[in-house]
């Protein structure tokens, strides 16, 4: 299980992202498994940004606690990332710019005048490529490793651009080879079955592809970090198949448009993050009472208010589970990997149409914006089924005749057959007001109210969240069981592995549906645990609270919380396990 971690950092606007992207994409194509995490600030130029890549010989869902190689274009990069450096780390810094950098003890230094070298080659912006060449040399890649990607990325800008970038890579490569040689070993590549690299994509991209695979052909959204990439993915791929993408004036409009489009028969969605989700709460209630299918993706970020727009958090949970006025049936899915982002989004459309209610897919910045390598077959459009739920047929409507179809007919399942505008004799008015079976307003009649309310509230009785909602790794009884949802999965998994290596009997429960809550399964897996540690990126322990409310175990549950904006490290989770152990129960 070999890994190598690499990071490049500097001021925003210096091309850090593209440097990281070229390095990562190249390694992915060579058959390595990667996890690439972007750290950035809510500004355009200046500040600090970095791009970290963890390279492994097996799939990884976490960027790693430490750093093997850090490339720093400025002192701030060294300062902000020093905590990840170890005695084995290599620090490459711009020796032309940083004359006497403050360096942590014990780190191996590789000064390279990257900016000056780039200037000599024609443009200081190419320092990124020089740094790429230095990286290639140090990890034992060849000088031409990035050539094909440079041709792809810069080809449109002309041949001279391609040549100068290649020359910059070679300059960096030769400089480093001569002075430092190979300092770090890459793990063994694991080529995909077809010989090429693995798929390399973010959770947001996987959400977009999952929607496309499920037949979603309408997305309305308002730009918001970290969810905008979903709109970009839709823009890149929906229109080719007649799918419509609209940038709305606000999240209220975006969500209402998605409801209107679903009502009119297309599979439609909206994507947003915390503040946008708050604006959509009114519309979520509308989808609930009008029984209109709706898919929302919430890519959580640091809150409240506009909070930490470019940092990760899992603090929308209460809003997802309880938000909107009144009471409505809803489903909230919390995928935990890029593959799950694909399949759970696809599944959301089936659930929304089957149960005619809002379905929210909740991820966060860390899962949404980090790119991961996944095996080629792991994302498969053919595995996505399309089930449009209870639609009334033309024949059934003709047999009923004019005025006889009842959109909100009270059924045992709570689900009534849906007609689509354009169908003869299928006329109905989707209702925001309380109504009777025929979609007529009868808001003063308590009997009808109770009947319709009860009908809506029982429609999810048939939905079994445990089927896709719970994954447990461990034995029937444990000393300690770690519980998490969403993006913390990989770190919890690595912590569990290390604990087991140290002889601790530990379990890992991953919750992937939070509404309706998989009570029975959670109860089953937690009942054998001596101690339960709920790991979540928020300040108040919302998941722990939900578990207490739904299944109990009050005296066994402790929280491991982080709300700094950064994802958990494995070390932090382990420290918490130890801490709790010493304190005892």
């Amino acid at each position, binding site marked *: 299980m070999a890994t190598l971690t690499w990071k490049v950092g500097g001021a925003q606007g210096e091309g850090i992202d593209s440097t990281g992207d070229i390095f990562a994409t190249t390694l992915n194509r060579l058959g390595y498994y990667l996890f690439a995490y972007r750290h950035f600030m809510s500004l355009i130029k200046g500040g600090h940004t970095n791009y970290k890549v963890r390279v492994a010989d097996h799939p990884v869902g976490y960027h790693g606690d430490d750093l093997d190689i850090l490339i720093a274009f400025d002192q701030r990069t060294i300062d902000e990332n020093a905590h990840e450096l170890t005695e084995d780390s290599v620090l490459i810094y711009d020796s032309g710019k940083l004359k006497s950098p403050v360096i942590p003890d014990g780190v191996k230094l590789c000064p390279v005048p990257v900016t000056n070298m780039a200037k000599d080659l024609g443009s200081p912006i190419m320092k990124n490529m020089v740094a790429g060449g230095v990286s290639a040399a140090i990890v034992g890649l060849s000088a031409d490793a990035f050539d094909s990607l440079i041709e792809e990325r810069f080809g449109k800008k002309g041949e001279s651009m391609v040549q100068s970038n290649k020359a910059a890579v070679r300059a960096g490569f030769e400089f480093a080879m001569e002075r430092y040689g190979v300092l770090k070993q890459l793990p063994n590549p694991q080529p995909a079955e077809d010989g090429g690299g693995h798929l390399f994509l973010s959770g947001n991209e996987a959400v977009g592809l999952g929607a496309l695979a499920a037949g979603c052909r309408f997305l309305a959204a308002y730009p918001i970090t970290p969810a905008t990439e979903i709109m970009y993915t839709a823009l890149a791929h929906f229109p080719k198949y007649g799918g419509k993408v609209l940038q709305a004036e606000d999240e209220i409009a975006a969500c*209402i448009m998605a409801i209107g489009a679903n009502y*009119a028969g*297309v599979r439609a969605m909206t994507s947003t993050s915390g503040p946008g989700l708050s604006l959509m709460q009114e519309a979520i209630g509308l989808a609930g009472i009008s029984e209109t299918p709706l898919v929302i993706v919430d890519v959580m970020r640091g809150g409240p208010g506009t909070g930490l727009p470019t940092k990760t958090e899992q603090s929308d949970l209460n809003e997802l589970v309880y938000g909107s006025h009144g009471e409505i049936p809803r489903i909230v899915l919390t995928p935990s990997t890029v593959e799950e982002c694909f399949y759970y989004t696809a599944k959301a459309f089936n659930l929304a149409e089957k149960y005619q209610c809002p379905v929210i897919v909740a991820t966060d910045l860390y899962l949404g914006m980090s790119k991961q390598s996944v095996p080629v077959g792991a994302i498969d459009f053919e595995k996505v089924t399309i089930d449009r739920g209870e639609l009334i047929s033309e024949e059934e409507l003709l047999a009923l005749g004019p005025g006889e179809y009842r959109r909100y007919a009270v059924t045992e399942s709570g689900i009534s057959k849906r007609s689509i505008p354009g169908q003869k004799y299928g006329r109905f008015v989707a209702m925001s007001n309380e109504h009777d079976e025929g979609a007529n307003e009868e808001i003063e009649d308590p009997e009808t109210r109770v009947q319709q309310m009860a009908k809506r509230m029982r429609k999810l009785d048939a939905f079994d969240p445990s089927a896709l909602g719970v994954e447990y790794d461990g034995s029937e009884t444990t000393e300690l069981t770690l519980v998490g949802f969403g993006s913390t999965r990989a770190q919890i998994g690595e912590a569990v592995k290390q604990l087991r290596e140290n002889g601790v009997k530990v379990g890992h429960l991953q919750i992937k549906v939070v509404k309706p809550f998989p009570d029975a399964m959670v109860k089953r897996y937690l009942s054998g645990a001596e101690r339960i540690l709920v790991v979540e990126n928020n300040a108040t322990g919302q998941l722990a609270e939900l578990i207490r409310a739904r299944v109990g175990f009050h005296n066994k549950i402790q929280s491991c919380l982080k709300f700094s904006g950064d994802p958990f490290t494995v070390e932090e989770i382990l420290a918490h396990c130890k801490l709790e152990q010493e304190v005892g129960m």
Partner: protein
Amino acid sequence: MATMKDFRTKNKPTWCPGCGDFTVLAALQKAVVELGLEPEQVALVSGIGCSGKISQYFNSYGFHSLHGRSLPMATGVKLANQDLTVIAAGGDGDGYGIGMGHFVHTVRRNIDITYIVMDNHIYGLTTGQTSPTSERGFRSKTSPQGAAEEPVKAVETAIVNGASFVAQAFSGDVKQMTQIFKEAISHQGFALVNCFSPCVTFNKVNTYEWFKEKLVNVDELEEYQPEDADRALRVLAETKGTVTGILYKQKRPVYHEVMSGASDVAAAKLDLRLPKEEQQALLQSFR
């Protein structure tokens, strides 16, 4: 061929006797019949308030949505299925208060829908508060000293933001209103019809008589050309907005024909499965 009866429902309107909304409903039913539309081809999206109840009384597909949200709802419906005739309807509070942002953006996009605003200068269903179109000095439960604000100039706003069809009608003139509805629905693009629809219960100022006295019909103006935006704005200024007829129209690209993903086939009628070779190519682009 559908008749008036086909566009009626068995629901008896709960509007107050004499409410202007009755004639809006009748004119709309007449207009769609005369245009040869069938009930299943039409979707009427309404907001909340007295005016929002119109979807209960008009026999077509419909969505009785939320206060101020009829336009994004109608937008979603139209973009999902451009083959439908989509009409949005609501009141002045609904459309020009809470819905004002959506209004301007729907105008800008030129969504191919007809938007009927039943403008009574007051909030009716919440029992008589000042509305965005109430005149300055208007006294109501929420402006006992008289409204301090200028009224919203919705029609002018539509024109200056690029509306492709702008008209005003009056509940006291069903004939003109029907004709305007027919032209608005036939128009390719966003068509606003602001209908003066008196509230007989709460608005004792802007009554039928008040409107009859003030209203100027552009059809009776000398050489009025609805293609001239400057003239339209001038007439609106001169009459303080109390003017009826088709005030302005222009040809503009319709949103669903130029948006990202524009297609001759309605989104709701597309094949949902991607061909296998397309799936492969798509995934390949993520390597």
